[in-house]
Every structure is written in structure tokens, then in C-alpha cells.
């Protein structure tokens, strides 16, 4: 029940991806440095969160976007795409969030919005404009 580390890492999200790269799907897995990140389209917005479920490491890019939540395909943990919070068990720990910059038709992730910490009660920065 661990995530499959040998999967294709997907595009380097710091270089930018276009909406066409999503291939008509709402989720796109890529990476920022060594971190696996999933981009999720919600309406006209694009949000970016960690790609591995914090329950048992399930592949969130194979999950389902419902409203502004992302559900894991393995055990249906439910995360807020806006804050990364695990709003529905069996996951408890939040996903890290990345800022997404929109440049005309491209979306890129310049870097982590905060250092990785393993404690809760983190403050999430406000979302950048441009979506």
C-alpha cells in the first residue's frame, strides 16, 4: 500500500504546462524538484497540491475532483484543494500546497509556498491572483 515511486514523474511544473497538457482531464501529475505535485482544474482555477495521499500514499492524480475537493482512489480520503486540509478521513495530515502562477495560457509552480513541516495548524498563504 505504498505509492509507486517508479511511475513517470510527469512534467517539471516550474517550467509551465498548458491547459492542453491536461489532455481534457481535470488532474495532471508533475513534479517540483523532487516533490510529486498534482495540478487540479476547478472551473477556471488551477490548484496544486502534493500528489501522494497522506493516508497510505495513494496516487491522487488518479483520484476524483468533486467541487474543490480531491478524493483519493484507494480509500477515499478527501482533501481541500484550496488549503490541502484532509477534510475527510482516513487521511488526517494535510497535503502541501503550491502557488500556481498563470501566465496567459500556461500554469507554472515557482516553488513551495512554505517550508515542509509535519505539524498541523499551518497558516496557508492567500491564493495568488490570475485564475
Amino acid at each position, binding site marked *: *500500500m505504498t505509492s509507486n515511486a517508479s511511475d513517470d514523474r510527469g512534467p517539471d511544473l516550474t517550467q509551465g504546462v498548458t491547459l492542453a497538457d491536461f489532455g481534457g482531464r481535470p488532474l495532471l501529475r508533475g513534479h517540483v524538484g523532487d516533490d510529486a505535485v498534482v495540478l487540479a482544474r476547478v472551473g477556471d482555477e488551477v490548484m496544486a497540491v502534493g500528489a501522494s495521499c497522506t493516508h497510505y500514499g495513494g496516487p491522487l492524480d*488518479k*483520484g*476524483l475532483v*468533486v467541487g474543490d475537493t480531491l*478524493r483519493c*482512489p*484507494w*480509500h*477515499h480520503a478527501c482533501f481541500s484543494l484550496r488549503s490541502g*486540509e484532509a477534510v*475527510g*478521513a*482516513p487521511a*488526517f495530515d494535510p497535503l502541501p500546497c503550491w502557488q500556481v502562477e498563470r501566465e496567459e495560457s500556461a500554469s507554472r509552480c515557482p516553488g513551495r509556498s512554505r517550508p515542509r513541516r509535519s*505539524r*498541523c*495548524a499551518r497558516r496557508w498563504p492567500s491564493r495568488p491572483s490570475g485564475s
Partner: protein
Amino acid sequence: MLRRRGYQGALAILSDDPDLPCDRPNLSKDFLAGKVPEKWIPLKSRKFYERRDIDLQLGTRVEWIDTDGRIVRTADGREFPFDRLLLATGAEPVRLPIPGADQDHVRTLRSFADSRAIIARAEQAKTAVVLGSGFIGLEVAAALCKRGLKVHVISRDERPLEKVLGPELGDFIRQLHEEKGEVFHMKNSIACVGAGEVTLDDGSRIPADLVILGVGVKPRVSLAEGAGLKVDHGVIVDEHLETGAPGIFAAGDIARWPDAISGETQRIEHWVVAERQGQTVAENMLGARQPYRDVLFCWSAHHGVSIRYVGHAQGWDALEIDGDIAARDCLVRYRKDGRTAAIAAIGRDRQALECEAEMESGRR
């Protein structure tokens, strides 16, 4: 969830289990099979609770709840006052009064300690008998089989999990187990347990260094009863999971609450339901007035095949199979009164999520 939502007041967890709150599904799955280290089983470390000022009282048995005086008293004489109380006392395994079942090598599985004890015996055992072909019985059988024991499964049912999943999936699951060498004795039961063997109702004798009883659980409601709360096959709560006593809630295996669609009450013994209900209770303790309407989700693992189940079908009028069960790529719909009451899926993870979302939107 209380701390996440900003509650900063006194918060205590009283548990008669001496172990930290743990990942219960794993106790019958990978941990029991020896695939996962012990340190993965507690959900959180002690430090987690300390950092959040959660007073974790383990090995602490509560004896009495005074709903008017708003005090909980423990067996060792301590008192814990409360403004809000959650009862989540869980369920305990049923122990059938089978002659010889009080011996040391006859075990049930509920707690972390139970799982460790079974593992310790399994390391010395060559043969095992599992009584029960429900989720726990079958998962324990598979785990012991993975450890190299010769396992026999005994069950009163005609097929494993037939009442929950139907005959086709029941047969398929039995096959998954039989392919690994487990032997099934259906429509049978244990008449008595000897020192190293069991005797079945039909007279056959099966070697058994270890016997596991997996014949269901019953909710632990005596505290609720003692407190004067309404109990009827579970602790009765409303859609907010609140009992008749304001500020006192119940969640998990003990809670019986009204289903949003049918209005009938239900009590569910599944992990994700228990956890989600705890989260909803936290919100409601803080005044959120959130009805519990999450769609049931559970999963079960059988020799590498995961079955995902969404919804709740207490019986069905029609069963539709999409895909190919033998190919491990299928979705089974259980239809009642013209709607899909539940689905079971193998290899259809995205579809299972979609069904869950559909059922969810049907409840709003």
C-alpha cells in the same frame, strides 16, 4: 478536528485500551500478515497529543457518566467534568459459547494487543482454523496463510460475504483464498475445540494450533445505558450524531443514526465511517449543526485483490455486474427500489469514487 477548528479548551481522551489509538484496518491486513512494521500502527505518536494539549488517558476504564452533573468517573476513582462528551466505545468481538473456546489458543481480533498476540502464536503455529467468513474472518485467514500456516475457514453461510456482496463476488473471493491453499467448510460450525484440533458440526476434525473467532462484534453500549441514554441496537442519535442528552454525542460502531434518504436508522461497523463521524461530532460540538451524510465507504483485501464498497445495501432487488469479476475489473451495483443502494468494485477505483459522489449528491 477539535483542535483544527480552533477549540483551545481542555480536551481529554479516555480509553480502556492501553495502546495508542491505532490503524485498526491494518490489524487484520498487512500488519497481521507481517508486511508492515509495528511502529506504523499507532495513528499518531504520544507527542502529537502532547503538542495539542490532548490529555490522552490510556488503559483507563470509565465506570459512570453523570449526564446531569456533566461528570465522567473512571474505575480508579478519578473524575473528568465535561461540557461536551463523545461516546465512541466501539464494539467487542462476539465469543460463542463453544466448548473449549476458553483456551489460550482461541483468539478474537479487535485491538492492537489482539493482533500482536495472534502474531506471536502464529509464529509458532503450523495450522489455524478461522470461524467466520465475514470481512475479519477472511482477512485473518489470508494473513495467516501468508505467514505459511495451513488455514481452514469454517462458516455457517453458504458463501463468504454473500449477504453483503452477493453470490458472484462471494464465489470469487472464496476462489482467491482457495487458490492460496485455504480450505473452506461452509454451512458448518465448530462443535468443540480440543488442544490441537477442532471438531466440526459434521464430525470432521481439523488440526488447529490456533483458532480465530471472527463471527461479528457487538456494540459496547453499557456506559450509555448506565447513563440513561436511549439505546436500541446501538446508542440512538439524531442526524447530528447527538444523543437525547444535549452536548453528548455518539459515533462509530455504537451509533445508530437516521439515514438521510430512507429515514430508517442504521448502525455501521466500518472504519472510515467511525473516523468521519468523529470529525462531524467535533464540528457539531463547536456548534456547526452539520448533519452526518457521508456515503459509506469501506475496503477489504484478499490476497492482493482489493474490493472497494460504497453505499449501504441492506438487501437488494437486483444485482447488476459490469465488467468481468474473474479479470478483477468489475463494478457490481446493488439496486433497491429503483436506485443504486451500493456498489462493490475491483479495479475500478475512479468509478467507485464517481459512484460515491453521485450518491452524495443524491443526499443534498
